[in-house]
């Protein structure tokens, strides 16, 4: 338990204050030799765990098609209205696919709700946290930037199946 002092309980030594300065300096000096807690960011990268919610991406199957069936549930649930989906018909077994799928990365708050409600495991949160734009148009990611091969997302998908 720590000492708790009020002004009237201060001892003479504490009132003189110089010993306090010495004590404070010795404490801070000691911490100089402790292991560093900070990360030297651009050189040292932060490697996120599987549960990390980075930017949402679309899962690309091995044959090159996206898994998404353009049901629009993710754009309905998105609290910040960041997603736009436009559906179209396709000859594939899934019958529908997103002709246009856009996420506005300035609006997105990385809540992970789109991933949580998607019935097809088609949109998942990646580990990508490095995003910088110079203008607003650049921040609207279309399918070209959103599609990521399924192999790269495997540990997130495993995490979802195990814990969600």
């Amino acid at each position, binding site marked *: 338990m720590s000492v708790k002092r009020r002004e009237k309980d201060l001892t003479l030594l504490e009132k003189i204050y110089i010993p306090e300065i010495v004590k404070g300096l010795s404490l801070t000096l000691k911490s100089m030799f402790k292991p560093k807690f900070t990360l030297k960011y651009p050189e040292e990268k932060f490697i996120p*765990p599987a*549960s990390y919610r980075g930017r949402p991406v679309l899962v690309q199957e091995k044959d090159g098609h996206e898994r998404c069936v353009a*049901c629009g549930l993710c754009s309905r*649930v998105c609290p910040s209205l960041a997603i736009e989906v436009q559906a179209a018909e396709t000859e594939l077994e899934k019958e529908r696919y997103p002709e246009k799928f856009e996420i506005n990365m300035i609006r997105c708050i990385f809540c992970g709700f789109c991933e949580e*409600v998607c019935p097809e*495991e088609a949109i998942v*949160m990646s580990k990508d946290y490095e995003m910088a734009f110079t203008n607003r148009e650049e921040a609207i990611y279309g399918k070209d930037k959103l599609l990521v091969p399924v192999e790269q997302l495997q540990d997130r998908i495993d995490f979802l199946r195990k814990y969600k």
Partner: protein
Amino acid sequence: MERVTKEEVPSKILQALLSTDSDISVDGALENEMILNMGPQHPATHGVLRLLLRLDGETVIACVPELGYLHRGYEKMAENMTYYEFIPHTDRLDYLSPMANNVAWAMAVEKLAGIESPARAQYIRMMITELARIASHLVAIGALAMDVGALTVFLWTLREREKILDIWDILCGARFTNSYTRIGGVANDAQPEALAKVKWFIDQYEPNLDECEKLINTNRIFIERLDGVGVISAQDAIEIGFTGPNLRGSGVEFDLRRATPYLFYNEIDFNIPVYKEGDCLARYFVRADETRESIKIIRQVLDKMPQGEVLANSPKKVLPKKTEIYSKMEELIHDFMIVNFGINPPVGEVYSAVENPKGELGFYLVSNGEGRPWKCKIRSPSMVNLQALPMLVKGHMVSDVVAIIGSIDPVMGEADK
């Protein structure tokens, strides 16, 4: 020529000035009061708080806190979205302890809709609210020390807080805006790695806090800046509506975890730190002691945490598990229904409050049977605690105002809603 003495000079000049044809009027120069605008960009007001201070020299005669610079209309926004969609918005109320806000919102909606969350989820919720309490108090302690001039403490307490954010990272995947609870439980089960990290954290926390305290608790400057500053009596504190550590710093032993036990707090053994002086120092002591009690609570929670589900099994109200959505038709339909139309709680109203780090955070919800709340009122502790500011700063120096704001520990995201 007539000689003027030194004393007469000012009045002569004055007369000369006034006798010419001008509209100058002169008051006693030393009797003026000054209005000082402190904030909204002032770094010591902890966010966008604006204080209008009427000063006599350096002494504050009167103060008017101006709130609303961070107003985002959350109460109105809640009426336009489903209960589920509002979860990320609660992160942004008290942004120093988003986890605790998530829990408060989920509990309010569960009370409204009559959902019982499973035991494991409730224990996880207790664990995260207590960790959030520590995270929030660490900022409060560090910022208070920094406001009165001790920068090192701020760096050290933030280092401890960073470890908690690392736990969030593993547990829910976000450091700051967690959105971890769900209606009927929590978003995902606590992984063994996350629990191991919590265990590691609580074992190393107390020596580190002691070290921070060694820097300031016997430091004469720190104590003299806070002792007897911003005193509020128990009576006044109750009348203003103080809650949380601020109230307990005035000698009132009131804690919602004890007064109206929620989750499993009635099974947990913990003390409520109370100091009777009601000044800034007492509020600081309460916060430091509370983090130690939180450690005690987390230790018991980890021991008692059962295995099992973390989401209630209530198909029409709680989102089904992901693997079931992929494979079963019924779950798929419920997924669509809940997301599109909401959970439609019965017609009625509830008020549900929890003990947040800053005080009593309450949600008053009125449902008319639709998927979205008909009315949502947020009782935010910072907003109420700030109302005491005029009373607290009266008669103190401008530099004490900074210490007093630090000791009240307002978060503007919550005060302005």
